[in-house]
């Protein structure tokens, strides 16, 4: 049981990392980015290429790939999102959906369907673990991921609430025209925000590729978990995403304990449950309390 809780929490850390960039764009910039997974895979291929061709360790490779992702984000904003976000709110869904198809297939065109992974370039890290008393093993990579999640999400949350640029990002997301009236250069701020989001997407891609395998089409399947974590976390809160990821991870691990097919079902059910609890803030005293605690955590 304790093992399940620990593994579930660690899994939650992974989801939080994957969801981070998505949540940032979803809850702060109000863009549902369907290309999130595909972009993470782009970063993964970048790291893989550096490691496979030039023998650069993926961790060092991040120093090259993350700035490149920032640039991608900047370009993405300038040439795609900026225009499409100006129309109706659904257009970014269409453009990022189109983008994800383009990216996936270009990757296929370039790299073929072969399964890849960054793990072979990490030595034993991908499966090393620490042994805790009680025959419990915690994977080193999993611990790294949850620490990364805390640092990134916490850092971003702090950035958004305490720093002028962070506030400017939120203001621009809410009303770009009025942001201009208080002196914010909306285009620049949006480009910076997307660049930041893409850096976190790059990190997500790296972890995804270290943890399992990827191919040009593996961006999509992880997307739902990321959305679930982001939505459980609640709009406007990045800390919430961490909580959301962990709630999801725990629900899945516990679900799997109950029934082998309970893994996915458990996650989905808890996701829906959380949404409905949030709907009834004044419901029964018990539900009310749960929802209050969910809120305060978020």
């Amino acid at each position, binding site marked *: 049981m304790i093992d399940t809780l620990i593994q579930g929490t660690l899994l939650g850390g992974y989801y939080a990392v994957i969801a981070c960039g998505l949540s940032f764009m979803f809850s702060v910039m109000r863009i549902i980015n369907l290309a999130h997974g595909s972009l993470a895979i782009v970063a993964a291929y970048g790291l893989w290429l550096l490691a496979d061709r030039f023998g650069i360790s993926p961790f060092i490779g991040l120093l090259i790939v993350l700035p490149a992702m920032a640039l991608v984000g900047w370009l993405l904003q300038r040439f795609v999102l900026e225009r499409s976000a100006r129309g109706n709110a659904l257009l970014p869904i269409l453009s990022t959906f189109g983008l994800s198809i383009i990216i996936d297939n270009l990757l296929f065109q370039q790299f073929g369907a072969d399964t890849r992974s960054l793990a072979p370039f990490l030595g034993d890290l991908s499966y090393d673990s620490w042994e805790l008393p009680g025959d419990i093993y915690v994977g080193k990579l999993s611990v790294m991921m949850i620490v990364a999640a805390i640092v990134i999400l916490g850092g971003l949350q702090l950035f958004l609430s305490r720093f002028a640029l962070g506030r400017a990002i939120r203001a621009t997301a809410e009303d770009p025209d009025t942001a201009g*009236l*208080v*002196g*914010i250069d909306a285009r620049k701020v949006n480009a910076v925000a997307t660049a930041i989001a893409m850096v976190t997407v790059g990190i997500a891609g790296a972890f995804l590729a270290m943890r399992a395998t990827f191919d040009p089409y593996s961006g999509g399947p992880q997307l739902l978990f990321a959305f679930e974590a982001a939505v459980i976390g609640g709009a406007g809160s990045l800390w919430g995403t961490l909580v959301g990821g962990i709630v999801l991870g725990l629900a899945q691990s516990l679900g799997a304990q109950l029934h082998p097919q309970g893994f996915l079902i458990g996650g989905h059910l808890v996701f829906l449950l959380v949404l409905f609890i949030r709907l009834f803030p004044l419901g029964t005293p018990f539900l009310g309390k749960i929802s209050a605690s969910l809120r305060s955590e978020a």
Partner: protein
Amino acid sequence: MSTLSIQELDVRHGLLQAVRGVSFQIDKGDVLALVGANGAGKTTLLRSIAGAHLPASGRILLGDRDLTQVPSHKRIAMGIALVPEGRRLFSQMTVEENLLLGKTSGRKGAWNIARVFDAFPNLVPRRHAKTGQLSGGEQQATAIGRALMSNPDVLLLDEVSLGLSPLVVDRVYEQLQTFLTSGTTIILVEQDLGRAMRVASRVICMLEGRIVLDAPAAAVSRDEVTQAYFGLHRADGGRAA
């Protein structure tokens, strides 16, 4: 020296021409009351001065700088701040955050958070509330405070007293008096004519996008202005409806 000058400004909303050939200039430290009936084009004019809406033709000058094509976020850095109609607060952000956003341009001056809270003490207990949840009057106070935070040279106020209780309106006008003394130029859209004419040094009345009356406040009577609302008064410059 003239601070702000507007030359032959035309502004459109699609096919509709909301501002037609408007010209005037206003000197540093002046208070201009801009009046006119509903739909006369006042808001449109203020928004194009602030850069929120680019004019179809004409020029906007601040000192000798041509602002016509300058985007709104740069105009505020040059000292033009707008309190927009309908407040336009960032509803998901707190009062304090909204106020801090007003500081984005980084202009130095007397206004800071503490002073805004002094001016609108009713905001103090709500400083950490999201502005979307404020009462109408609290929102208006925040919007004014936000504009003041940028320490503007030219302050454009669009229906500031709308939704404010009389007590607060009084306080707003007191504040106007105090920063007038520091040399701020003000364009004021206000429907309470009596009030507007009391603080203003000049009155401009618009009708269907044109200026139909432009006179020193002391030189016209309230009745004359009211007549101008309906196009019964001809402006001296002859640019009549």
